[in-house]
């Protein structure tokens, strides 16, 4: 009996929704579409070498994305920052980890609504190799 691979599998049996300790993304009209979102960016480790003080305070159109944050930081901090965070095609390096209000944001284009309080963005590079 020859069963095709794609006949065996039923639709995705992935894990149920993951419980996150972070609350739902605030959808607070405090920063409506087209208005400015205030963002405090904390750069850590080698990324912190590029700034004189922390946090770096930004204002970006709401909703914003971490891609917009990176580009604005790149504009302010120059090539040294961009080369640490982006590959040659302008994509975020996978070991550059970005968190917004404590939750990791993997998709740089994901729109993020900020509340009345400034959003906290944290960025760090985890580059260590492994072995064994």
């Amino acid at each position, binding site marked *: 009996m020859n069963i095709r691979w794609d006949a065996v599998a039923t639709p995705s049996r992935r894990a149920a929704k993951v419980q996150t300790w972070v609350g739902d993304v605030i959808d607070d009209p405090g920063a409506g579409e087209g208005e400015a979102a205030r963002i405090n960016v904390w750069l850590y480790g080698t990324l912190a070498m590029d700034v004189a003080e922390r946090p770096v305070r930004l204002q970006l159109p709401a909703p914003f994305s971490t891609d917009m944050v990176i580009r604005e930081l790149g504009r302010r901090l120059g090539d040294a920052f961009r080369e640490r965070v982006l590959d040659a095609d302008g994509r975020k390096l996978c070991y550059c980890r970005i968190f917004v209000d404590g939750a990791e944001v993997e998709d740089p284009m994901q729109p993020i609504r900020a509340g009345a309080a400034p959003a906290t963005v944290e960025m760090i590079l985890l580059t260590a190799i492994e072995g*064994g």
Partner: protein
Amino acid sequence: MTDLSDIVRNTSQNDEWVSTSCALCYGSCSILAHRVDGVVVKIEGNPESSVGKGRLCGKGVSGIMTHYDPNRLTVPLRRTNPKKGLDEDPGWKEITWDEALDEITAQLRRVREDDPRKLVAQRTTTVTAARIPFVTFIAAFGTPNMSMAGGGLHCGNAAHLLSGVMHASWSIVPDFEYCNYAIYFGASKGHGAGHASGSNMKLAADARARGMKMVVVDPMCNFAAAKASEWVPLRVGTDAALALAMAHVMVHELGMYDAAYLQAKTNAPYLIGPDKCYVRDPATGKPMVWDLKVGAARPFGEVEAADMALDGEYDTGEIGGVRATPAFALLREHLRKHTPEWGEKISTVPAANIRRLAREFAQEARIGSTIVVDGVTLPYRPVAAIAFRGSQGHMNSLYNFFAIDLLNHLVGAADVVGSCLGFNPASNGFPENGRLAYMPYPDDDGLMIPGTWMGYHMPYPVAEPRLPQKAGLQDFFVMSLNTPYLDSDDREELWEKFELPYRPEVMLNFGANSLMSVGNRDAVAKALADYKFMVSIDLFETETTRFADIVLPDCGHLQTLDSRSNYPFIFSLPAGMGSEWCWPIRQPVLPPVGEQRRFQDVMLELGDRLGIRADMNAAYNAAMNLEGPYRLQGDRKYSFEEICDADLKNNFGPERGLDWFKENGLIKWPKKPEEVYWRPFADVRVPVYWEFLVPVFEKMDAIAAPRGIKIPSEYYEPLPDFLPCLSHCCQKPGFDLYAFYYRDVLHTNSFTMENPWLDEAAQLDPFSYTVAIHAETGRKKGLKDGARIWIENEKGRKVAGRVHLTEAIHPEGLGVAACAGHWGDGMPIAKGKGVFFNDLLELDWEHSSPINLSLDLCARVKVTLAEEDAK
């Protein structure tokens, strides 16, 4: 084995069994340490844990002797002799911790202000608890330079890369519960050390008792082959030749391959153009396939797998603009030359045997069959071809591994019932909250990205090569993991050519004995001596620690804490349905002795002194995925206990923090078939044609060629081939043996030779401290058993040892066990025992793989009787 099922814990304060984790190897098996009146009197396996399943190898039970070794470091030391060398006495003087940390902080601060990349952190692979503290420290400090010394370099640059790309995991193993035919290429899973070694011992034994046929391909017949149904001796470093010849038989002579799997789960149907690259849809950029139903090229996602052509040549006309061929057709044509006769010439495995092995493998694969496991219908392919350290210890390691794993994918034996399994590539997570869930997922080309990884640079998609910022050049050699270029003879020349804008100045070493584990000692000694400042955190004064400026006495595994002994699950949690998901911790059983301190606390204190605690907290948050109330805040000075508590609660809920885990030892939950046999449920494909190597090479060449660096293109072809190691090319008269080293089940790296129980067992073993040569080969050379010989490589490097003549080795082989041959005084039990094989290894560009930086671990040698025995 002692029945521990009715153990009453905490029977009294003075008599207690404490659940924790071993660290005599990176398996980190779960153990119970019996402490009576403050003394550990026994260590056994913990039957409650999936990690070890209550079994513990000789190394683990001997952990008592490592802990109580009187030669353990107990006070910080400062070098007074500024000269560093193999024969230099450091002139140690005892200092206080404050003195030590003051000086270390000053040096680190200087380097950080100048250029943080000048710090190189190096750690042993043995102590898995070191992973997160070091990841976080170097992330906070700002250096990308991390070394895993020999334990990393020798042991994973191909194994982990291929296991990651093809199985979304760190390593591969047969599905012991259901596999009927396992062929091991230079691997000992379930028969020696390695990932999940304790658990795999039982799984493998049960499989053999059930009737699983085990074929071991190895120049040496030892731990795995000794239990095998069949030992296939082959010439060192020729695994790819044997595997490709087997693939030839399967495809060309038997016509046995799983077309449905190849169509649905690999890039075999992807159309390849004359430039060796995918033919892409102009509108979407997606790789195209030939749709047999409509007779046209279409993006892969728009065609039913059953309608995708695997053979033929097609005119993609207006859409693709070129004539194109499915990747499988190219593979088929590529395999045409790899006949068993060709394979025999290279590997010395007789052609008839190659045909038989291929036929047995393909027939037992039962292509097209299914089986029901726990009510779930799944593909059933009860064969597995696995590989590890042996095949990967060569310049040609990538193709060795690729060719071996190709056997699995030709018959669809990948992460399904009975087949080659990755170690837990998919998990639904903890059932109560779904945390820790991960699953492989596709990139834009449909190829698999692992759901989790040990580091943060995935094996796929491949990073963009760039002019290196790492001293090990891994950001240029993007297919690599660990590097020889921190210690190589020609590192300065390479750094010049690659315009590295700094030079390493400070080394922070944790437990690694790189002087013994990487390559010949002259090269590594020079590299270590070049550091302006070196700190070593260690249990003993090893040969490497002797080069340090400051030595800090570490706590051992019975004295330390680790909230995640066996996480990520892809590293050391056993694969398959035969065990549960399990999260044990390591907890202290005994206090520090003298001035010993836990290295985790030391790293945190250094971070505080440097003023980078906020950065370390951020790194811990990122590395441990800490969220919400468990996220470390600002620059607050959390203790390591608090960090572990946060880690545990973050994953298992507020009621299961460190105290709960100290009481319970571990948490576990059952696996589901769709987690273990995930491949049918994930819409991902794996590359049987590594198209991505083409642009990778072009980009590397664009950087290297203008700088006068030649990268050989033959290592970057999309299909595997046999590429000879330098040892295979040696024409020097008299150099007629292939020297290699192999893991000794009694020992871990160079660490355990100091353990007197293990040393005693090794002295009783005829192989552990000797040089194995085939009996007939030895007799022809006039050697007698026990004779002392010199082993010399082509460049004149020599090591000495005593011969053991045996039938259990390939006639051309010269096998040395483990990483022995200590010469330092700091480990007196270990000193003078065994053979220091690595002194035969050249450490330079010429002897490193130009694709994944694997060091060539085989050497062409000649042997001569030592003078006293010649007389």
